[in-house]
């Protein structure tokens, strides 16, 4: 049985924004990322799970009990940990008291706090006040505070949003390690696709109040459910195509579709920019017209007789502007028939 199950959750959260029938399950010891742009309803969904708001319709079952729907269990009774956006440490308490806040009556309070301090690698900083911590330290303390009472589920609301890129990478790994060490399930809400893909066991894509697709990061990346996800998650080039003889005929040749196709259907194929192969060829019909070099790779803009595409190419070997090339597509592509 799953640890958390949402069924048909509907919630109007103001200014015409609505969650429309959300269903989602989270298993024990699983990290699920909810990915969506701002205004999609991510934070509202999180607040419903935490118990700060009641759904208009639908049911939430947590740990075998109905917590919203027929009956309602308020936040303080749910034992679900939360880590808000900027940590929200209690400004009047030091690190030690922040972590120990939820386990005041626990006889093993001290050893638990020490254990968590070790886990978040902040031993020796017990006496620091929140104002004296860096952004990354704040977030780790906030995580430890949420984990202290040993909840079965923690909710992370854009926990890395305010941090710079390098720190974010480090903290991401830390959070993954800490959550797995504690054996706790987690839901991470984010608008950062890289974060969702790299951190989560499963990703749920939320758009305009609906969950469009749920799957492992690989599934979501390789087989996006629609064009919207294909372009939102990673870079894709969209090209018109028509199914002929089981393949999709496009201006770049006949491509194999990953999904089921019906003969004669027209639609669009989504090709990942890293799936282009640019072969230098003096007699090629395409020309490199732009090139942005990042070191490890480069984005190369190519003009074919009919299309302009952006391809990601291995940095050191990326062709220069002005070179003639032949464009190949590696592997299979996703085909989305026109409705």
């Amino acid at each position, binding site marked *: 049985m799953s640890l958390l199950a949402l069924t048909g959750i509907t919630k109007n959260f103001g200014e015409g924004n609505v969650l429309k029938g959300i269903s989602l399950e989270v298993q024990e010891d699983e990290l699920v990322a909810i990915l969506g742009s701002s205004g999609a309803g991510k934070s509202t969904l999180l607040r419903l799970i*935490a*118990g*700060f708001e009641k759904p208009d319709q639908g049911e939430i079952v947590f740990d075998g009990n109905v917590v919203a729907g027929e009956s309602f269990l*308020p*936040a*303080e*009774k*749910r*034992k*679900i*940990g*939360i880590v*808000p*956006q*900027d940590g*929200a*440490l*209690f*400004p*009047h*308490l030091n690190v030690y008291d922040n972590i120990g*806040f*939820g386990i005041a009556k626990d006889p093993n309070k001290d050893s638990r706090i020490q254990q968590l301090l070790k886990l978040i690698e902040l031993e020796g900083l017990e006496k620091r006040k929140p*104002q004296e911590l860096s952004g990354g330290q704040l977030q780790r303390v*906030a995580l430890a*505070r*949420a984990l*202290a*009472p040993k909840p079965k589920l923690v909710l992370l609301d854009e926990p890395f949003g*305010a941090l710079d890129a390098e720190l974010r990478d480090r903290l991401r790994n830390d959070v993954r390690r800490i959550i797995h060490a504690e054996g706790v399930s987690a839901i991470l809400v984010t608008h950062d696709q890289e974060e969702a893909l790299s951190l989560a066991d499963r990703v749920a894509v939320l758009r305009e109040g609906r969950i469009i697709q749920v799957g492992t990061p690989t599934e979501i990346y390789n087989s996006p459910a629609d064009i919207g996800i294909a372009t939102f998650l990673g870079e894709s080039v969209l090209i018109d195509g028509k199914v002929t003889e089981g393949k999709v005929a496009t201006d770049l040749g006949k491509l194999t579709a990953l999904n089921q196709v019906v003969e004669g259907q027209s639609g669009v194929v989504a090709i990942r920019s890293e799936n282009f192969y640019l072969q230098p060829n003096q007699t090629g019909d395409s020309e490199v017209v732009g090139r942005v070099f990042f070191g490890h790779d480069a984005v190369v803009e190519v003009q074919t007789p009919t299309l302009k595409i952006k391809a990601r190419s291995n940095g050191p070997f990326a062709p220069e502007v002005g070179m003639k090339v032949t464009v190949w597509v590696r592997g299979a592509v996703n085909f989305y028939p026109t409705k």
Partner: protein
Amino acid sequence: MQKPPVLTVVLGVFAALLAIVPLGYLVLRLAEGIEAASAELARPRTFELLSNTVLLVVSVSLTALVVGVIQAWFVVRTNLSYPGFYAVVATVPLAIPSYVLALGYVSIFPWFSGFWASWLVLTMATAPYVFLAVSAALLRVDIAAEEVGRSLGLSRLQVFLKITWPQVRTSATAAVLLVSLYVLSEFGAIALLRFDTFTRAIYNAYRSSFDRTAAASLALVLVALTLVIVLLERRYRGDYLMQRPANPRRLKQDLGKLQTPVTLLLALFGLLGAGLPMAALLNWTMIGSSATDLGKLFAATLSSAGIALLAAIVVSIFALAVSIWVVLHKNKLGSFIEGLLWSNHALPAIVVGLALVFFGANVTPWIYQSIWLLMIAYLILFLPNGLAAMSTPLAQVPKGLTEVSQSLGQSYRKSLTKVILPIASPGLIAAAALVMLTVLKELPATLLLRPTGVETLATRLWSATEELAYAQAAPFALVLVIIAGLPALALNASVRKTYAEVNEE
């Protein structure tokens, strides 16, 4: 760093000398007659005054805290209808001098006097300070931290006690200490309500005998009491500066069935703090309108305005000089002078008035009973207000602008007058106006030091109440509230900020 302009230093040092001389003189004279003074203080009467004063200070502080916190909580943290209106209601007593408030009550209930009367009037007069401080703090409490508390198993009450209140406590403590200082130095309302505390006793001792030792020694005890609270206050002022959370979310508790009772309670506070007494004064004014001497009223208004304008100019010149010195050219002497001037912010006006009477009569008879001695009193009393109000707009002028101006060939002095002062001028003018309005409402020092024959709105009001002529006093009180109180409320920066934040959704 550039040296401060000579003129600012001269004015600053002069202000500092003025600030310490009168009180110093009071201490010296008492030290000479130490035996008479200690005999005076050993009387049981002193202990009675002390216990009365302490009782009033403590009880008013506590009830003002309760009233202010209740108002702030409901306005900021619940779905109360029309929160902006109740924010106005909570701050409106600031526009009414407390002796006017007292007058309003006495004019309805002639028996209204003594401890409970003073307690009620001063509680209503000072609750706005608590309201402003606590609602500002409540607006800065991080809602996310409260939610974390609930996710960790705390009930709503526990969340308030363990998470919200600790974040508000510092501001609330600072406000309560401010209230204590207010009550300690309050003269008009307490005298009108005939409750014997130090301020009333000092005034009576001064009025009733030629031996001024009694008044002076009581004044020093009052200063000592004030000092205790000022030292306490220093510990709490700006303990930790709370930032507004980056993404402030408002979480408003649903009042549900409590909406009506809460509205009634807040309206009751408004009625007690402003509505009832002001209605009484309005009523008296109408009843006595035929008897009102419009000539007297006009003359008093005019001399009040003239005196206040002159005082505002004098105070502003010194405040601007010292602010330029400490904000733009901070050095050790400047900080010392600023600290010295600021230390007078809690000095009861009655003590300043008394000290200047002694000093004027014995040392500087050529300005005794002239407008200039009164101006010195205002300078001592209101320079701290002026400094606080003027240093903010100066500090807000971006630092680099003077340097840019100088790099474009302007001298430092030109940069100051052509760049910094014009940019800061709206704030500086508001500060000067605020000083003027504060002077308009001043009673005890004006009473002791005004030149013979000069009557202001406040002194006219005072003498009318001494004769229990409420119908005569009422129009003076009303004019005072309209020309001084309400504009001061409208100019008050923290009041404006609170309104804006309460109304923003």
